[in-house]
C-alpha cells in the first residue's frame, strides 16, 4: 500500500516536472534585447545608463494608499539619459488597462514630464490615446495637478492608466532625487 502511494506521489512529481518544462517552453523569451538596449537604440547618440530603485515599506504604502486598485511593486528600473549636455531621466512603466497591458515611456526633467510615448499597447488600438492628449502632461508642475487633466471619452480606462503611470513616474523621480 505504502509503495503504491509513493508511486502515485512520484507520478505527480513527474507530471509537475513536465508541466514546468512546458511552461518554460511557452514562456521562453522571444526578444533577445533588453529594455536598456531598446532605449539605447531609440535614442542614438545619447548615453543611456540603467539604475534600479528599491522602495522602502512606507514609500510602497503611500503608493498603495493613493492607488489602491493598482498592483504596485517595491522594485523599479529607471534610466539616466545624457544627450550632449542635457541630462534627463527615463521611466518605462507598464499597467493593465482592462485585461491587457500598455507600456509607456516617460522622460522627466527637473520633476516635470517633458515627453511621453506609448511604446506598446496590447488592448484593441481604438482604445489607445492620441499623442496630442499626452501633451497635456508636459505642463504639469507637481503630482497634485495630475487630477486636473481631463480623461478621454471612449478611452477612459486607458487615460486613467496613463494618469496613474504619470503619477508613478513623478513619484519615483521625487524619491530618486532625495
Amino acid at each position, binding site marked *: 500500500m505504502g509503495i503504491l502511494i509513493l508511486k502515485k506521489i512520484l507520478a505527480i512529481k513527474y507530471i509537475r516536472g513536465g508541466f514546468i518544462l512546458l511552461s518554460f517552453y*511557452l*514562456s*521562453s*523569451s*522571444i*526578444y533577445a534585447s533588453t529594455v536598456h538596449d531598446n532605449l539605447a537604440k531609440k535614442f542614438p547618440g545619447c548615453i543611456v545608463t540603467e539604475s534600479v530603485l528599491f522602495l522602502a515599506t512606507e514609500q510602497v504604502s503611500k503608493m498603495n494608499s493613493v492607488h489602491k*486598485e493598482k498592483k504596485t511593486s517595491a522594485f523599479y528600473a529607471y534610466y539616466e539619459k545624457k544627450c550632449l549636455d542635457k541630462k534627463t531621466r527615463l521611466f518605462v512603466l507598464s499597467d493593465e488597462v482592462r*485585461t*491587457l497591458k500598455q*507600456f509607456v515611456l516617460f522622460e522627466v526633467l527637473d520633476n516635470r514630464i517633458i515627453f511621453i510615448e506609448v511604446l506598446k499597447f496590447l488592448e484593441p488600438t481604438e482604445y489607445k490615446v492620441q499623442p496630442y492628449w499626452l501633451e497635456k502632461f508636459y505642463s504639469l508642475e507637481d503630482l497634485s495637478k495630475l487630477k486636473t487633466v481631463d480623461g478621454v471619452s471612449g478611452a477612459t480606462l486607458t487615460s486613467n492608466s496613463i494618469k496613474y503611470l504619470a503619477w508613478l513616474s513623478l513619484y519615483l523621480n521625487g524619491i530618486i532625487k532625495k
Partner: protein
Amino acid sequence: MMNRRYSLPVHFSTYITILIGIVLFTVKNFCSIEGEWGIEDHYLVKPLTGLHLLTTPFLIFFVGSIFHFHIYLKLKHKTKELRPSGYLLIFSFVLMAFSGISIQILMSAEIRETAVTIHNVATFSWIIFYGVHHFNGRKTK
C-alpha cells in the same frame, strides 16, 4: 429523459469552453514572457481570450435551450425532481456568466478584480458540478 439532440450541443460547447478556459487561465497566470519593454502576457493570451469570448455565447445559447427543453419542462409538469447537482449548476452558471460579463463592462479595477475571482471560483464549481451531473445522469440511464 433528455433528448440527445438537445444534450449533445450543450456537452460539446461546454467541454470546448472549459478546455479553452483552462488553457487561457494557465497561460494568463503562469506563462508571462519577457517582451521588448518588460514582462508581458504570453502571445497566446490575446487569441485565446478572443476564442473564449467567441465560444461562450454558444454555451449560453445551448444552456438556454436546455433550460427550455429540460429544466423548465421538469419544473412545469413536476414529472421528475431536479437533482442537487442541477440546482448547483444553475446557480454556478448564473454566477459564472454574470461575473464574466462584468469583467468586460466594469470600469473600476477593484471591482473587476473581484469579478475575476468570482468568475474563476464559479467556473471551477461549474466544471465539477457539470462533470458530476453528466456522469451521474449517464449512470442512471
